[in-house]
């Protein structure tokens, strides 16, 4: 059972960074909804307990995963995806060229990848802001409903952007997987 370097890195990008980011962002939205419950917030309060240690670590890990996903995608995997194929090369190693070589698959690049490569960045930007407000301005968050509503809205948009990017990434990788590079033996081969 083997996996190539590019397949391994793509899995880390999508399933580890991207997957964890999506799950963590969903968890953060649940946390925000819970904290937005009027019974749990105190409109008269101008001070609040600071975020617990686990919440701080959780939000920092969420933001780090989001940035790791977009940076690894743009600077490691995307160059493999968009590499120019030499004449006569096997297009299986050049996903963008493979998709563009058939009229039935060009949309996966012209629409899917073009949308994914840009919309993805909105997710870590917005989630960074959300985490920063939750960690640094807990008192204002606790006291003001408009702030809670706005931050929750940005978290929802971040989730939507991450869903779009992750969904298209998964589908494009099914049509034209990023592969190649050194192979690693994961388990001994069976007869």
């Amino acid at each position, binding site marked *: 059972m083997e996996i190539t370097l590019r397949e391994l890195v793509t899995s880390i990008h999508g399933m580890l960074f991207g997957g964890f980011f999506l799950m963590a962002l969903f968890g953060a939205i649940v946390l925000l909804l819970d904290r937005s419950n009027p019974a749990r917030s105190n409109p008269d309060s101008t001070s609040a307990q600071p975020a617990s240690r686990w919440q701080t670590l959780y939000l920092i890990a969420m933001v780090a995963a989001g940035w790791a996903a977009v940076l690894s995608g743009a600077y490691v995997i995307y160059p493999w995806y*968009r590499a120019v194929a030499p004449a006569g090369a096997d297009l299986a190693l050049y996903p963008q060229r493979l998709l563009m070589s058939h009229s039935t698959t060009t949309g996966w690049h012209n629409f899917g990848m073009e949308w994914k490569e840009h919309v993805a*960045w909105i997710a870590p930007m917005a989630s960074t802001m959300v985490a920063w407000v939750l960690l640094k301005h807990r008192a204002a968050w606790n006291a003001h409903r408009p702030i809670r509503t706005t931050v929750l809205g940005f978290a929802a948009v971040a989730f939507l952007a991450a869903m779009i990017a992750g969904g298209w990434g998964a589908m494009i990788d099914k049509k034209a997987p990023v592969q190649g590079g050194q192979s690693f033996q994961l388990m001994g081969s069976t007869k």
Partner: protein
Amino acid sequence: MTEIQLVPQNPANGPIAAAVLSCAIGCFLLGVLAVAADGSKHLANALNFYHPTGPLSGVTTIAIALWLFCWAVLAARWRNKTLAFAKVSAFAFVFLALGLLLTFPPFGDLFLGR
């Protein structure tokens, strides 16, 4: 930019308003740069900061730099101010929605006349 009306007798919400508005402006600029780079070969070449990644490297680097710069400037200006947060929030959601829309290829193509 429209001056946001000050509302007294509330705790300062300026730093949060700065974070929210700058994030939305950053997302909007990301969309604007993405469409502009798609429509102009000259701009696309100028934004090609890292050749293997292409113009995407410049589009995102500039957008993030402008977002952080905007955040720093607004945070410094609004550090001790209390703003009409609903108005800031409305502006922010408009910028955020436009940013999202501009990343959607058919919407960007409308601007480019394709």
